[in-house]
């Protein structure tokens, strides 16, 4: 209930005149500066409603007179970022890979872009540190299935492995058991032979050397050092994509392996693929 404000002797303040169940309230208004700020904010908010997107409607929202949109702002910023990189990305397109590697500012740009693109596109299989896992090669080491030069890496990324590109890289190792080329006993011996190539403590079973020359050397080479033309791995270095123990090797020989890497040309722009090639080459295994 509202009545006339009363003067309170103790606090030397007037009451507001409101009374609730016998309780009265002293009139101690907010400090002026505080009031001025709230008035200013109210005026500001009215201007804001008119100028900026503010009110939700059933379909969408009020657009505001300034036509501001956060989405447009983000797009403009992304475009500006792209434009600012344009100088370098155009240079990247023109330069060949060796030139990029030997030009410090291009290299820096390519490495930064390559690292980001690797994280977005490659780390899912190859791991964030590019150290790979079973079936996905380690890109840090110097053991390359399809070659570790700048151009070979660039080509592999571009066309992919068993990808959709017409020139995609395909290695077609026979499934020696399924195709009935070798029987289980022979495959067991061959697995032991392959292990013996990198582990000198194991003696190759009798006759396996001849069997290797007959069945495998055409791709893996007479000395089993592999052949990058066919994506045939080096069997003597102890580094193995699927595992170097006899059991895994038996499975590999019996059923073959058909790992896939996507064709990245068409998915990524040429400058990004170049950056990726340079980045991967610099991980330490590039030759």
């Amino acid at each position: 209930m509202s009545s006339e404000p009363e003067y309170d002797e103790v606090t030397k303040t007037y009451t507001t005149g409101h009374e609730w169940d016998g309780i009265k309230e002293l009139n101690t208004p907010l400090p002026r500066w505080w009031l001025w700020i709230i008035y200013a904010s109210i005026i500001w908010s009215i201007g804001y409603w008119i100028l900026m997107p503010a009110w939700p409607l059933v379909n969408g929202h009020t657009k505001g007179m300034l036509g501001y949109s956060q989405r447009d702002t983000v797009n403009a910023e992304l475009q500006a970022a792209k434009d600012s990189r344009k100088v370098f990305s155009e240079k990247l397109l023109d330069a060949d890979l060796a030139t990029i590697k030997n030009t410090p500012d291009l290299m820096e740009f390519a490495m930064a872009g390559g690292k980001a693109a690797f994280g977005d596109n490659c780390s899912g299989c190859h791991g964030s540190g590019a150290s790979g896992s079973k079936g996905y090669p380690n890109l840090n080491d110097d053991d390359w299935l399809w070659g570790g030069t700048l151009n070979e890496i660039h080509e592999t990324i571009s066309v992919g492995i068993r990808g959709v590109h017409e020139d995609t890289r395909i290695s077609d190792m026979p499934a020696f058991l399924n195709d009935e080329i070798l029987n289980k006993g022979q495959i067991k011996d061959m697995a032991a032979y392959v292990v013996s190539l990198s582990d000198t403590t194991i003696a190759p079973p009798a006759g396996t050397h001849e069997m290797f020359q007959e069945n495998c050397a055409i791709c893996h080479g007479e000395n089993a050092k592999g052949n990058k033309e066919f994506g045939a791995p080096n069997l003597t270095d102890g580094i193995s994509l699927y595992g170097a123990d006899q059991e895994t090797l038996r499975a590999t020989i019996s059923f073959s392996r058909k790992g896939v890497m996507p064709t990245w040309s068409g998915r990524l722009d040429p400058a990004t693929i170049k950056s990726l090639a340079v980045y991967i080459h610099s991980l330490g295994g590039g030759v």
Partner: protein
Amino acid sequence: MAYEPQNSDTPPKKSPEIIPHANVARAKVEAVNKAENRALYAAQKKIHPKRAKGTFRTIKWWVMVVTLGIYYFSPWIRWDRGPGIPDQAILMDITNSRFYFFFIEIWPQEVYYITGLMVLSGIALFLVTSTAGRIWCGYTCPQTVWVDLFLVVERFFEGDRNARLKLDKAKWTADKFAKRTAKHISWLIISVLTGGAWVFYFNDAPLLVHQLIAFDAPLTTYFWIMILTSTTYLLGGFSREQVCTYMCPWPRIQGVMMDEDTLSVMYRHDRGEPRAPHKKGETWDGRGDCIQCRQCVVVCPVGIDIRDGMQLECIQCSLCIDACDSVMEQIGRPKGLIAYDSLANFDRRAKGEPEKIQIVRPRTLLYTIFMIVVTGSIIWGLTHRANLEVNVLRDRNPLFVELSSGDIRNGYTVKILNKTHDIRKFSLAVSGLDGYDIRVEGVLDRTPEGLPVIEVNRDRVRSVKVYLSVPRAQLSADSKAISITARDLDGSSISNNATTFRGPK
């Protein structure tokens, strides 16, 4: 100190018996911020300080000139540091993360020098405060200096206290409008220059001036100019003493630095009381020296009556000393009724002991020792600072790589900081590892001994990828402590960095 301010200080009634000293200005005022009249929810009452004249006012003019001079002009001092490096004596280079101060150049990781400088300023403030009260507030605080400057402008256009009081009450005429407009425009010009000077500390000043005029400067500079223009205008023109009383934490803290020997601006009530108006030729016996002219009140920029004793609002600007001294001179009494004095001296006088200024006290000694220690540490740090720094970060993903030759390879990111203004070349070597092969990505240059040579540009950090590989047989354990050494090719400096070499278990 048991001193109760006298509350009987109401303006004197006009009475024909009392003819005050004709040449002494008198004012019928009560202090705007008198403690008992201070309501929490009151609007700010405008204070119109009268211009004071005297020793302290002169000192304050000079302090104002010097401090404003330092603020406005120091970004324009040049200091040659060689090619490619800014030649501005004082520069906070945010983009390149460097701080330049004449011959000192500080990198971001050395921010502790700035911390040290702040600690030093803090202790210096403590020392000054415990010695002579609010010297900082009264003379050098930017708020005080700019309010003083704004008051100069106000006086120039609107006249001194009485004229301003009259103008405040006057109806809006063309004359009042013109005076007010001129004042506010001048204030705004000063504010823009103040905000403008600030951004020069963060950019090359001569270049930025051209950019600012051509509206080509970075948006942030305009933003900061705007912010500081408005703070200067609002705090200097309007908030004034409210900043010191309500916004600033320092007045609330500094009480703990003061003791009974601290000098502060005080009314010597033992000499001034009982106060009463005084007629020329009347005797001074049985009364105090205060003649109730209230000149100390009208000059006060924070609107208090110094005769009420020490108050939080008092910034100790000493202008009341000047005002009182000139009155004392006119009525032929000794100066210093209001003066720098200590509480201890009040007690000493009461006991009949001689006055004493006790500056050397445990508190001031301690602050001085702190200052010497901090200053010494900063100087020691600056003179013993290495101009080469090397950081080695071991790759953790992958921890190590097995090569097809059977060798084990580890990768390291090595960051070399060249703090000199010359291009330098460093060789990298490893100790604690036998038969290693070192390769630096993108670096082909080698010393005759076969160590890679890394060139680092002047005043720059270079980050390189280093690959170390050893035959597996060399690794006796899965982890080996090694150290990577960067050595300046001219032999001037060397940096050892401990790290590890990891291999399979």
